[in-house]
């Protein structure tokens, strides 16, 4: 029908624009924080503060995102720094996986995205997760998955050691020791004229330079992330065009495991930044809430973009350990949440 296009195109534009501009402010926030962190934060501090016990190290590693809020894209270089500074691999993995979820910006954006979802326009309960519930579940399960995976990694590490790491990462560790030793030498020499290298500058960069660096990193990250947001929003808006609200709702209720797997698959394909993915997930409103949870926990831990980055730091054995551990856990937890939630609804509201 010729009028179908007249209907679909405006619908698409409206949905797409809505997702985009809801998410954009949070991306900007995250990008600014990333810029500030890169410029001002010393990571040596972290390495010194890490506890001896591996277990505790893992537990803390998972929470480091609260200190260093990083999007999943930016977290790999940070993690590599920590590795170089001597933080154990398992703690680094815990940070790698939980960092993009357990941080203030993501909590905020998830809360905003799901605010009011638990009631419909008439004020009746909608059997969806509202803001607080989704935040709580996302953080909680994100942490669990990260812990579980980190423990497995620790076990693997005790078996295989640095064979788990890609050559570059291993070389990093050695080079870092060398570089810091070299720097020590330079610092103890009388400041001023060069030996062979350019003169040692003990001065700090000016405020203007700092601001410049921050804005450079922030803008670069902003552009980087927004590209994927646009792509993800396009995909989400198109999918919403293809199926009506009722279709999605009933299908996902009847095929819960499949719905969860579908959203998990979408999370892997979409490569969204964790600051913005909550809005895309929320746009799939009719889906069962557990599927959206799966999307939100898996997305920051695994997608095509992350996989590429993983290959630079980890060897296949470790990569697959992580992938399988994460995917299986997310699926199982989401399924459990689904059944628990349905039971709760039945109990509270009678048949849905």
């Amino acid at each position, binding site marked *: 029908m010729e009028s179908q296009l007249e209907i679909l195109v*405006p619908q698409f*534009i*409206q949905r*797409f*624009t809505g997702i985009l*501009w*809801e998410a*954009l*402010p949070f991306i*900007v926030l995250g990008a*600014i924080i990333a810029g500030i*962190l*890169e410029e*001002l*934060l010393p*990571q040596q501090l972290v390495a010194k503060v890490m506890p001896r016990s591996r277990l505790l190290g893992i537990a803390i590693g998972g929470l480091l995102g609260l200190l260093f809020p990083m999007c999943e*894209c*930016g977290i*790999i*270089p*940070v*993690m*590599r720094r920590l590795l170089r500074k001597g933080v154990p691999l398992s703690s680094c993995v815990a940070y790698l996986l939980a960092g993009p979820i357990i941080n203030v910006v993501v909590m905020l954006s998830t809360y905003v995205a799901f605010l009011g979802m638990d009631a*419909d*326009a*008439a004020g*009746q309960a909608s059997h969806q997760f509202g803001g607080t519930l989704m935040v709580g579940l996302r953080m909680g399960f994100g942490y669990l998955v990260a812990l579980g995976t980190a423990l497995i990694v620790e076990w693997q590490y005790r078996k295989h050691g640095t064979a788990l790491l890609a050559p*570059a990462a291993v*070389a*990093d560790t050695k*080079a870092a020791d*060398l*570089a810091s030793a*070299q*720097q020590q030498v330079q610092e103890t020499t009388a400041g001023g004229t060069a030996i062979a*290298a*350019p003169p040692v*500058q003990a001065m*700090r*960069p000016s405020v*203007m*330079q700092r*601001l*410049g660096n921050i*804005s*450079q990193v922030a*803008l670069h*990250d*902003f*552009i980087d992330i927004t*590209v994927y947001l*646009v*792509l993800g929003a396009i995909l989400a808006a198109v999918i919403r065009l293809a199926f*009506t*609200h*009722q279709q999605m709702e009933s299908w996902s209720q009847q095929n819960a495991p499949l719905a969860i797997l579908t959203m998990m698959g979408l999370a892997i394909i979409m490569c969204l930044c964790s600051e913005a993915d909550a809005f895309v997930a929320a746009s799939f*409103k009719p889906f069962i809430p557990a599927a959206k949870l799966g999307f939100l926990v898996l997305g920051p831990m695994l997608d095509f973009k992350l996989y*590429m*980055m993983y290959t*630079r730091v980890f060897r296949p054995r470790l990569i697959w350990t992580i992938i399988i551990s994460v995917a299986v856990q997310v699926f199982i937890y989401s399924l459990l949440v689904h059944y628990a939630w349905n039971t709760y609804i039945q109990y509270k509201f009678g048949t849905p």
Partner: protein
Amino acid sequence: MAHEHSHSGSSFYIEQLATIVLSAAFGAAGLAMALDPEKKMLNLILVPKLHITVLLCGICLLVLAAVRTVTLLMTVLGRRQAHHPEHAHEHHHHELVTVGTAAHAHEHHEGEICCHHDHEHETHEHAHADETGCCGHEDGHSHSHASAPLRYVVLLLPIAFFMMNLPNKAMWLAQAADATGIDVSDTAKGPSKGEMQLDFKELDQASYSGLKREAYTGHVGRLTGQISHTMGNPKVFTLVRSRMTCCAADVISIQVFIVATQPVSIPDGTWVDVGGRIEFQYQEKPGSQGSYVPVLRMTDIKTIDAPANPYIY
């Protein structure tokens, strides 16, 4: 940290410039939308309480773009003055500044023992020529310069929409019933049940309850009301009745959407009796609050005389 390498100079600057311009474009668009006193566009895409976030992010982006432009100009001018000594100087300076700071994907340690190539940030501003002579350098860059222009095209999409003043109310209203998810395809879904006489108010109330919706869906019902063609689509119109809960002061109109297979040209305000299959469709509002509305898939329509009492209670 600006890295100017003579062999990659121009592409680096183009990257930086593109980044600045695009960020500023987003910032300007956000700012323009948020500063519009009527918030014409924002109201269509965001709940009002989030409008402030768009304003803030617009301001931030413009500020960042401005700062970056200034520092970029400064480095360009600085570079012009002293070529080589500056070059090495910047690098070493950079080395000291960044050792111990957070991982920075733009680090280059030329002349150091090893290069740490953190290309995970997809930084395209470094020409690959720099990487020769680095050990520990991962090969297999999945981020080639070829993808750079594509990224900008992708980013231009939302900017283009804004420039075309999309979405706007005219487009929205014209498709109101349809744009918000009402399915106007010819085929009604589900099995057909018996006929029932419909009460306007009852139908409206039923839309809030899943059980009631199921009970009504599929029945063929008859409804009386006044025609209202606000949809811009000749096949979709609403039937309006005025409802009084207490007195003339609080009369509100409730409406039911009617979807016809052929365009209906009966003028607005005419009283009609419509028969059709009942269904409920989900209508979206900006910002995730939506609701079900009753829809009649019209089977027949006839004009009637205005009833003695137009109100329902």
